[in-house]
């Protein structure tokens, strides 16, 4: 039921209206151009509205219409391969309708109303169906079978269900109480979609990024944060995760960041292949782009739009990962709106409810048993952009209280072009222990030990470095110098990984194991050789070390590694003589 009122005040993206009686978070249309907005405050008989489009020229007295509905996203086939703004308007449609620049007052539905999909029923008339149950499917892309689910809160007995070609709004089935079911359903973005139970996240999200998979893994259904100053690698890391991680669906939210970074995804992803299925990466990707110069209120909404889409695919039984770049820009949108509302500011001007909002967002991650009984997950990875790179600021601190994995980016590493610039001493993963079993069963029974060894070498190196800073490395005993040498190998050969190198960009687990084991082998052989009084200088200049350093760039990695091992054996044998 629509009701009409008037604009009372306009201050940037915040409009105050009178004469309507909405509920919190109802969507309203503001002014002659019917700009979309959402009620975010009620004060006396006035409603405070955040408007998702530019408000220039709006005057007091213009009409405001309350739709009496919350902000919803459209869920159904056609989400994959789409690029949306923060409130799910498809950007290609906006371009067709308004040209190359984003103008305002255009509404466009999230899902194409004219496209037809071939629906294959999996249930039959007379079947009793419950919320979340799969009643059929459409082939959304070559590898994504899109299940059509009974919407939450709907149940009954199917009276009709028919195979055929349908648009998203046509009825494909009906319940005996008359409820029609379509390919599309809607869901309010600010509310998590229901599931049956939470499950223990004990399977890693394999990312093909050595430092992440080996040292600081995130579980499928887990949460991770990547804080770092500008230029340290937040976006590249999230792009790498979107490209190579073994999720079935990736939702990438560019929240208040650069336009060109979205263009990069759009131009690269169609040409890169998912290592698991061989299909173009775009075929499993949903993009949401609300860049820094697009309206701030829609930026605030963008992460919710993203996570709701992620949950929807989870409900089909898939493993989904959501990237949010950057959650700090979302928090700043909150702050900007809050300050226009003249709310009491908390730390650094952020509203006092920042922590609650952040944890409510990350709470939507998880490995679950879906309503239909499937094992599925949403993994959430959030970039954090601390002002001045100072991790003690409120968004970083509140995020770290919630997430289980912390990938600390370090500008010192970035400056020397050590990428990914993830600091191996300050980062952590609280999933380590839970995931050990998976790694030992699926990668190698020796994995936990190998990883422990690498971490230990790196930690000892850090301690020794403090001494080196005072006396120089030549003053250390030889076995400590060897440790520094091995640590250097771990850093330069294993931890460093070039995202822009055709081969090195993605490193499967088997290769990670081989690389790390080979470094370990070099270390063991060296220790033994030095006990036999072979000088370190001889070891440090061995050719096999050099060849190993380059093996990760080779297409024929296996072949190259074989050469390394042979060369290593002969060099050490020769040195012993």
């Amino acid at each position, binding site marked *: 039921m629509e009701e009409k009122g008037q604009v009372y*005040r306009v201050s940037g993206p915040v409009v105050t209206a009178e004469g309507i009686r909405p509920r919190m978070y109802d969507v309203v249309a503001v002014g002659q151009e019917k700009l979309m907005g959402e009620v975010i405050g009620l004060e006396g008989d006035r409603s405070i509205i955040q408007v998702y489009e530019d408000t220039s020229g709006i005057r007091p007295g213009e009409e405001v219409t309350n739709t009496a509905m919350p902000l919803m996203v459209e869920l159904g086939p056609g989400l994959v391969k789409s690029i949306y703004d923060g409130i799910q308007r498809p950007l290609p449609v906006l371009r067709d309708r308004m040209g190359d620049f984003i103008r305002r007052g255009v509404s466009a539905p999230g899902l194409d109303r004219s496209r037809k999909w071939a629906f294959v029923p999996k249930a039959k008339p007379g079947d009793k169906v419950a919320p979340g149950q799969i009643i059929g499917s459409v082939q959304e892309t070559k590898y994504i079978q899109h299940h059509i689910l009974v919407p939450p809160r709907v149940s009954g007995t199917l009276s009709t269900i028919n195979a055929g070609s349908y648009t998203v709004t046509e009825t494909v089935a009906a319940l005996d109480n008359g409820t029609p079911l379509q390919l599309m359903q809607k869901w309010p973005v600010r509310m998590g979609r229901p599931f049956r139970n939470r499950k223990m996240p004990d399977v890693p999200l394999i990312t093909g990024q050595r430092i992440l998979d080996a040292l600081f893994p995130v579980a499928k259904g887990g949460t991770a944060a990547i804080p770092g100053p500008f230029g340290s690698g937040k976006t590249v890391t999230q792009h790498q995760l979107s490209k190579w991680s073994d999720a079935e669906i990736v939702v990438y939210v*560019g929240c208040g960041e650069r336009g060109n970074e979205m263009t990069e995804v759009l131009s690269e992803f169609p040409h890169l292949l998912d290592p698991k299925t061989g299909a173009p990466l775009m075929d499993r990707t949903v993009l949401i782009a609300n860049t820094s110069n697009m309206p701030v209120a829609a930026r605030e909404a963008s992460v919710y739009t993203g996570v709701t889409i992620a949950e929807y695919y989870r409900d089909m039984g898939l493993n989904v990962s959501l990237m949010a770049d950057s959650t700090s820009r979302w928090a700043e949108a909150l702050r900007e709106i809050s300050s226009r509302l003249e709310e009491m500011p908390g730390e650094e001007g952020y509203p006092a409810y920042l922590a609650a909002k952040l944890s409510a967002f990350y709470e939507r991650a998880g490995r679950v048993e879906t309503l239909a009984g499937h094992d599925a997950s949403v993994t959430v990875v959030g970039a954090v952009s601390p002002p001045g790179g100072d991790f003690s600021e409120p968004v970083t601190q509140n995020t770290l209280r919630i997430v289980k994995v912390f990938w600390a980016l370090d500008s010192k590493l970035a*400056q020397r072009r050590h990428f990914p610039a993830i600091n191996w001493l300050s980062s952590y993963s609280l999933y380590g222990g839970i995931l050990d079993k998976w790694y030992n069963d699926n990668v190698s029974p020796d994995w936990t030990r190998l990883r422990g060894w690498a971490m230990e070498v790196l930690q000892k190196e850090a301690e020794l470095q403090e001494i080196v800073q*005072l006396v120089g490395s030549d003053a250390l005993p030889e076995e400590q110098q060897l440790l520094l040498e091995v640590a250097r190998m771990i850093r330069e050969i294993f931890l460093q990984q070039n995202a822009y190198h055709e081969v090195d960009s993605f490193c499967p687990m088997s290769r990670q194991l081989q690389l790390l084991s080979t470094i370990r082998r070099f270390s063991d052989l060296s220790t033994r050789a030095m006990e036999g009084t072979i000088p370190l200088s001889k070891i440090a*200049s061995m050719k096999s070390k*050099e060849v190993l350093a380059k093996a990760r760039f080779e297409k024929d990695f296996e072949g190259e590694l074989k050469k390394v091992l042979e060369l290593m054996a002969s060099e050490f044998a020769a040195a012993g003589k």
Partner: protein
Amino acid sequence: MTKEYRTVTKIAGPLVFVEKTEPVGYGELVGVALSDGTTRRGQVLDTSKEAVVVQIFEGTSGMDKASGVRFLGETLKLPVSLDMLGRILSGSGDPLDGGPRVVPDKRLDITGSAINPWARDSPKEFIQTGISTIDGMNTLVRGQKLPIFSGAGLPHNDIALQIARQAKVPTATAEFAVIFAAMGITNEEAQYFMRDFERTGALKRAVVFLNLADDPAVERLITPRLALTAAEYLAYEHDMHVLVILTDLTNYCEALRQIGAAREEVPGRQGYPGYMYTDLATLYERAGKIKGRKGSITQFPILTMPGDDITHPIPDLTGYITEGQIVISRDLHRKGIYPPINVLPSLSRLMNAGIGKDMTREDHKSVSDQVYAAYAEGNDLRGLAAIVGKEALSDRDKRFLSFADLFEDRFVRQGREEDRDIETTLGLSWELLGSLPEGVLTRLDRKFIQKYHPAHKGERAAAAKP
């Protein structure tokens, strides 16, 4: 004629509060008539049924409550046409060169609109600036926004001018234009730019907007928007490749802070408004390229870091939006090195798109990574060498230490008029890398070492012989 109101109730800093008006649109342009007969312009920042808040571009000094206020029913527009080329305009777009007003082809809203990310085209055409630290290590591409982070008294203007003079796209000969927008810089500095533009003939292809140090601070909020509106017109309607130099963004941000304080807003870091990131983004994101259009906008914003502090909110928020940064170093300047660009904190995020085979050279990326790693290591060792003495360093360390010196002296240092092409820059990189043991060059593919490393020159020559 629009109605004139004489209902000013309060004047605070650059803001004027007006009551009892008819409905006024948000962002509307405002004309104010002072009792001394002069007029000023402003813009609506807040509008309600009770009161309107207006920000006056030229400031409120000398204004009183008897001033007459008119709401002009439209947002601020810039008259644009091709005749703008060669003109010098004030920070609010009025002629300063004694010439006539620009006869408009169009009048464009100066706020601009966000480019639809779907409509963007990836910037990837290599721009050769002739400066090794940029071309070799932080390559610029057409449509990029690459700021210069500098400090008071450092030669950022010389560098910006050298770039403007030398910048070329080796493969193309399209029309170009330069837009220069000064915000709060001194007259002397402005003249420095103007003289160079005149000397090189660039002025004919330039549009200059000048808001100088003694011009009103609030005007600085519109100057860059005028400049970018002119840039968009030339780029997207006349297919030109436009280079926009904005200087000094620090003064722009100070003006922003001043408005925030006058509005009694809750301040963010160090007193700057919480929306400064978004505000700056509406400037910087106007750089780029659009699919199906020939022109482009490349931005060179210049800012001086207060206290040389890169974590200060102005460089910090800028770095979070722009596609990298060129950082000028006081240390290198003191060592007498020009251009004193410190490559370590510098970055070009779009570099990878513009370099490599068919664009610059196949080895470009790896060479640059290797030089970075080596210089960083050598630079770190300087601290250690100062403590334990050079002699106590290992042989490996000594080589890196001298690499760092060599790099600054040979690679970073170049003349103000020296225009190095990319082959020269890459050749220089290999020459320097040749001073290190080959075993430490872990970033370089074997095939590149064989092809370009000075030590393999002999083999190459031998192989080339029949």
